[in-house]
């Protein structure tokens, strides 16, 4: 077994709303192996971003709460870590990049100033040193003419350039873990390919671990080592990327894989679709949550008792609903 940098055990995260407490992440467990990439894939509302915000302790306050479980990062439990220590960790040892770089960057500050802030928050540096490190990092993320770009504002950069800037800010302190939440969703496929390659290259160079959150199974297949499939607040299947694509066990994973149009499929043929819609957080059931959409008969016990999360083969975990996993 290789070592792991992050172990999440039975994480439960909920939001207090006017309609009561909503459990967005409902008992999720996974490990991130050192130097590798874990992909978390799922549809909107499945809790993948809330999982990321729980790890970085960036849940919206005061409504978002971690109710249970542990997040162990290098021997420390991030759930109980005092706030000032968390602030020292975040942006330094654990960094995050977001989906929409335009909303994640400050529109009224130059990108250079924002990059400098990321450095100075964690280390005292001279002006010259900050400038040198900034330019060096911008070169690493392949931003042309970094000396000029430093003085520009986010709106002056293209979508791809903004995302590169976000990556530069996230990586400037050489984090051990990078959490990328849909880093390429807002970008064109051609730019997406550039950004994914960039993250992979920097990962190799800096030896960091990555959690990549996406809804795109294509992206998962291209860059991840391990995959966790989330559905309605839970992980339904977790395996190495090769196992998962070659031998998907849960009906949801199978359905997702079959529903994507492929370049080698015959044009204008009907796709195998998963019926129904992604359930909203208020409709989460205690038992198997995919039951309604699986097209398979579930009895009362399957709907009320939570299926156990079992290791069905070495390093291949599945939420073992006897109907959805056959």
């Amino acid at each position: 077994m290789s070592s792991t940098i992050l172990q999440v055990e039975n994480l439960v995260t909920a939001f207090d709303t006017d309609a009561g407490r909503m459990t967005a992440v409902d008992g999720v467990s996974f490990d991130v192996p050192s130097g590798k990439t874990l992909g978390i894939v799922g549809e909107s509302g499945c809790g993948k971003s809330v999982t990321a915000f729980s790890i970085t302790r960036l849940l919206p306050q005061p409504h978002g709460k971690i109710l249970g479980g542990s997040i162990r990062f290098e021997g420390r439990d991030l759930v109980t870590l005092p706030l000032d220590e968390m602030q020292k960790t975040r942006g330094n040892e654990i960094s995050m990049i977001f989906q929409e770089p335009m909303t994640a960057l400050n529109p009224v500050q130059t990108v250079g100033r924002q990059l400098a802030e990321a450095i100075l928050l964690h280390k005292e540096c001279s002006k010259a040193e900050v400038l040198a490190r900034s330019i060096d990092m911008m070169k690493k993320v392949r931003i042309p003419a970094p000396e000029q770009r430093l003085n520009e504002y986010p709106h002056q950069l293209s979508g791809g350039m903004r995302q590169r800037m976000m990556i530069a800010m996230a990586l400037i302190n050489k984090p051990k873990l990078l959490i990328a939440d849909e880093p390429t969703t807002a970008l064109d496929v051609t730019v997406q390919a550039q950004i994914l390659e960039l993250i992979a290259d920097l990962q190799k160079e800096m030896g960091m671990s990555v959690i990549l959150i996406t809804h795109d199974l294509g992206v998962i297949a291209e860059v991840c080592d391990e995959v966790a499939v989330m559905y309605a607040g839970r992980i339904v299947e977790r395996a190495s990327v090769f196992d998962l694509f070659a031998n998907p066990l849960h009906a949801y994973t199978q359905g997702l894989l079959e529903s994507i149009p492929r370049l080698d499929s015959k044009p204008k043929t009907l796709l195998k679709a998963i019926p129904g819609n992604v359930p909203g957080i208020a409709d989460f059931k205690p038992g198997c949550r995919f039951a309604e959409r699986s097209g398979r008969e579930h009895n009362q016990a399957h709907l009320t008792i939570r299926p156990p999360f079992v290791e069905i083969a070495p390093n291949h975990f599945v939420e073992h609903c006897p109907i959805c996993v056959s």
Partner: protein
Amino acid sequence: MSLLTVQNLQQHFPVRGGLLRRSVASCKAVDGVSFSLGEGETLGLVGESGCGKTTLGKAIVRLLKPTAGSIQFDGQDITHAGIGALRPMRRHVQMIFQDPAESLNPRHTVRDILEEPFIVQKMGTKDERRKWVLDLLDKVGLTASSTDRFPFEFSGGQRQRIGIARAIALKPKLIICDEPVSALDVSVQSQVLNLLLDLQRDMGLSYLFIAHGLNVVKHMSDRVAVMYLGKIVELAPAEELYHNPRHTYTKALLDAIPMADPTKRRERQLLRGDVPSPINPPAGCAFGHRMKHPNWEQSVNMDLTLKEISPGHFVQPCPCCT
């Protein structure tokens, strides 16, 4: 005979600047596009953002006034038709938008939304229209109880179904689908794509299917046109384009698609840089210019009209990319 023929269509927008808001430059969003679309056929249109694919769609439904060129629909020249002349045509050309949350009026019930096309075209009595609305809901897989609900009460996929129901209400001949599934969840995308395929078969619809995902476009289309910076650089039958792409840009687009198969990971020929601005685009082959191809200069004074290199396979004949 083809249903839609577009010839050398240009859609330029003035860029205003200075104290007097004079036109200082022009944004050539669509710059000389020609194609035709047959009855019951789907033409896919792909390209990166900013290549002009949405503008082209809007120009065809005449939400814009084209700068030059011609659009013929069903034997009629509609390039410069006025509002009165356009109304009967609009019955036959409809549009489905990317974000159903923004293209449905939030204060209208589903019945209001679906009844409106009939009212605009002065069709049917109130009772007849109510019946038609129920038929439409049934066709797109929504229940009759949806009629008195508002768009926000539906999920993204259901909202897109309402958008589709509105588009097919008047039994059109052509639907412009502008990124109809990009905003939807993966498991819902395939439902909506299947619905579009079913409707096409049942109603004999033609689609202009605009998307940036080449795998979705390829799955839906008979023929595919690849657009770059306001121009079509390659147009071919879907299978042919995928197996035998000739333009470097098409190859690059195909290469950039992430494949849902980890055993087929490969070294990619990545495109560098972003799509340049359509304001003052480079002369000659714009893509050759982006790639800094040594032969790009030869393309500057060339006639870059699409050439048919094999039956139905058209490509821009520039010395740098083909």
